[in-house]
């Protein structure tokens, strides 16, 4: 039981590293080839949220940690990808709102 727990934890760590590298390469490919669109922005925002969660859960080990820290850290990676998307969607409104 103990060994299984450890084995799973370590495997998840290695798997997370490979996954994060693949997502990063995919993001770079998008940067070089894709034309800007809301769908691409949504995809990139999704990848930011997923990468953040993966690093927090498996590198930082927050998936076992204090719930307050978990909440704030996870929220950060929900709020900012959402804000990136909303900024794209409501760019003109944001510009009007922030014009002095």
């Amino acid at each position, binding site marked *: *039981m*103990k060994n299984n727990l450890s084995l799973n934890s370590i495997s998840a*760590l290695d798997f997370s590293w490979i996954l994060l590298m693949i997502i990063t390469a995919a993001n*770079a490919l998008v940067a070089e080839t894709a034309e800007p669109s809301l769908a691409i922005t949504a995809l990139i925002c999704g990848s930011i949220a997923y*990468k953040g969660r993966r*690093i927090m859960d498996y590198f930082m080990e927050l998936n076992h940690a204090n719930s307050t820290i978990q909440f704030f850290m996870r929220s950060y990676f929900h709020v900012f990808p959402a*804000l990136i998307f909303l900024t794209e969607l409501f760019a003109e409104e944001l510009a009007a709102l922030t014009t002095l």
Partner: protein
Amino acid sequence: MSITATEFHLNGSGSVTTEPETVNKIPGNRAVWVGIFAEMTEFALFFLVYFIAKAHYPEQFEQGPLELNTLAGMLNTFALITSSFFVAKALAAIRIDDPEQSIKWLWRAVFCGGIYLVIKVWEYHWNVGQGIETNTNEFYTMYYYMTFNHLLHVGWASGSLLWAIHQLKVGRYTKENHIGFTAIACYWHMVDLAWVIIFPLLYVLR
């Protein structure tokens, strides 16, 4: 002893399997989390300024990423993610009472931090060759402000990894007591997390 053949210690203060009360604790210590949240707030302010600037200068923010060196950005992301992975491995090694292995993983992490710094300095030189400077336009001002600030964080976080190596060498971090090491690891991962947002903002999204 293999890393995969041991009980799993968490937070540097006990074993999940034998001391379940350690679950739900603060990784590392409170002080480092005050620092981490302060840094995350600082980066949050940068991101908010980026959103506002992008709304006001959409053409600059659409063209800007096209002129940057995406390969350098991608390699830097690889370097940071890999260094975070190495730090997690180093922590796993000290949990099984293998400080020598832990030190090796940490040196690899420091090496990746060094690679990041070298690539970033090279990229700045490359940018200047392309006519991209801090005052070229608002996008590049954001780019330099955000990436240079992040570079500083990588610099001093690398210093903290060197400190952890020293502490491991003199036997101050052990299987039973490595809270300080866990705190340093959390800070390093935070630096990685900030870059996870910065990379797409500056190099990918247009």
